């Protein structure tokens, strides 16, 4: 079983014709289940209403295809206390994780109540991270900030999105943090990247993610299928690790 922990339902993928095409592609590549979040569009700093609309897209997809889509609740920490209401609403309707993106850096205290909510609800958080050479804005989390969050909340299950963008740096940063998993999605299929992840953090902490439709299953599965790793590692990365993190 392949579980993809990083899929965006961007418009028009929520329309039945386009959903069918997405599922056809998933079938072609053997992707059984997809964690979906941050649907509709990739506008940053969504307000409370827009956050709710975004999550409604995911909830609708979950209802239409419960065997294929696992919803993650997208939250903007800057929305404030309404965040926790939205989290409870979404988890109450079956979502199994939280997605945090680029609204504020993840070591900002605004994020802490969300992490504490995730701990209470026993669900993981997938935090977008990217250490960008050439500079990044202050609301964009890098692996160092992510590691600080993971150290502050060792009981939280945290997924470092895109393996920190710069994999060599990101993997080193979280190597000794057992509550951290890394997601392979995003970026080109640079050779040896999944091999490196297995060496640095161990295959049990690597999750297959694609970043579809921004990226393709073609390029993203190639990272894992092309890796020089044992079949048992591949099975862990493709599905069994995610089952554990998601409590499936």
């Amino acid at each position: 079983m392949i579980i993809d922990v990083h899929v965006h339902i961007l418009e028009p993928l929520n329309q039945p014709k386009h959903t069918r095409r997405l599922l056809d592609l998933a079938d072609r590549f053997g992707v059984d289940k997809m964690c979906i979040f941050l649907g509709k569009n990739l506008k940053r700093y969504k307000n409370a209403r827009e956050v709710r609309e975004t999550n409604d897209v995911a909830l609708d997809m979950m209802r239409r295809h419960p065997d294929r889509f696992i919803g993650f609740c997208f939250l903007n920490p800057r929305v404030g206390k309404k965040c926790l209401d939205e989290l409870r609403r979404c988890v109450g309707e079956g979502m199994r994780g939280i997605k945090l993106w680029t609204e504020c850096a993840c070591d900002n205290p605004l994020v802490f109540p969300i992490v504490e909510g995730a701990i209470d609800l026993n669900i993981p958080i997938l935090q977008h991270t990217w250490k960008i050479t050439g500079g990044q804005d202050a609301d964009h989390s890098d692996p160092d900030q992510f590691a600080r969050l993971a150290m502050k909340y060792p009981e939280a299950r945290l997924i470092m999105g895109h393996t920190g963008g710069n994999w060599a740096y990101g993997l080193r940063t979280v190597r000794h943090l057992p509550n951290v998993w890394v997601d392979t999605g995003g970026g080109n299929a640079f050779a040896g990247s999944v091999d490196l992840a297995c060496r640095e953090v161990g295959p049990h902490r690597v999750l297959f993610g694609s970043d579809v439709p921004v990226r393709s299953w073609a390029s993203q599965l190639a990272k894992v299928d092309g890796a020089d790793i044992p079949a048992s590692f591949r099975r862990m990365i493709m599905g069994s690790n995610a089952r554990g993190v998601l409590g499936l």
Partner: protein
Amino acid sequence: MIDVNASLGDWPFEPLKNNSPAGLLRWLSIIGVRKACVGALEAVWYQDVQAANRKLHRAVGKFRKRLIPLAVINPNFPGWEDDLAECVEDFSTAGVRLFPAYHGYTLKDACCRELFEHAGHYRLPVQIAPQITDHRMQHPKAYVPPASLDGLAELLREFPKVPTAVINVNGHILPDRSAVRKTKNLFVDISWADGTDCVDEFVRFYGLDRILFGTNAPLMEPLSAAYKLKESSLTRAQMKMVTQTNAMRFLAPKGVER
């Protein structure tokens, strides 16, 4: 299948696997590639690229039936004309590969135009690589953002007999379709194409006869390009165009073994 975008040699920032002729060919064979255009990776960073071109020539040696050598030329460096002449006359190079971002010139610069003049004279195709690694992940002390493709349309129009492939292009760095629509000598490779249905998008954007199969190996995993074809809606005949016929047209001025 012909891979138009492969390399041999070392990269300064990480050890590479499958970067020898035998290793690369073994790796590419897994996805069905029979022939590959190769340039010297070291030439991306060398000031004097010719040392790398000579090393490539020696490496290709007995693999010549399957490896098609391309000369990496820096037209912004004194004596590049001699480098190109040596590559043509002594190394039987099949084309030129350019890295404007790394070698410090733009497609609008006079030196680039002169390079195209020479390519036309030698009947060589030209590849332009605006990038070769993701700039967001580069070494902080060796940061090279992608080259602009401004000036490409003018080069294509001025040198219509020089087949020109822009390689390593994605959604952020793409030749402007409106600017190149009236030209027939532009090709693009799929090595960096990404996003759901990316190959179909490239075909819609540029036309099937301009699309080339490229992997950017050994920096990138060749399976990625093969899977993109698998994802596409191309028919078997269309796939043959992308993986063979178009590449042979691109290389036609010098020709490859048919």
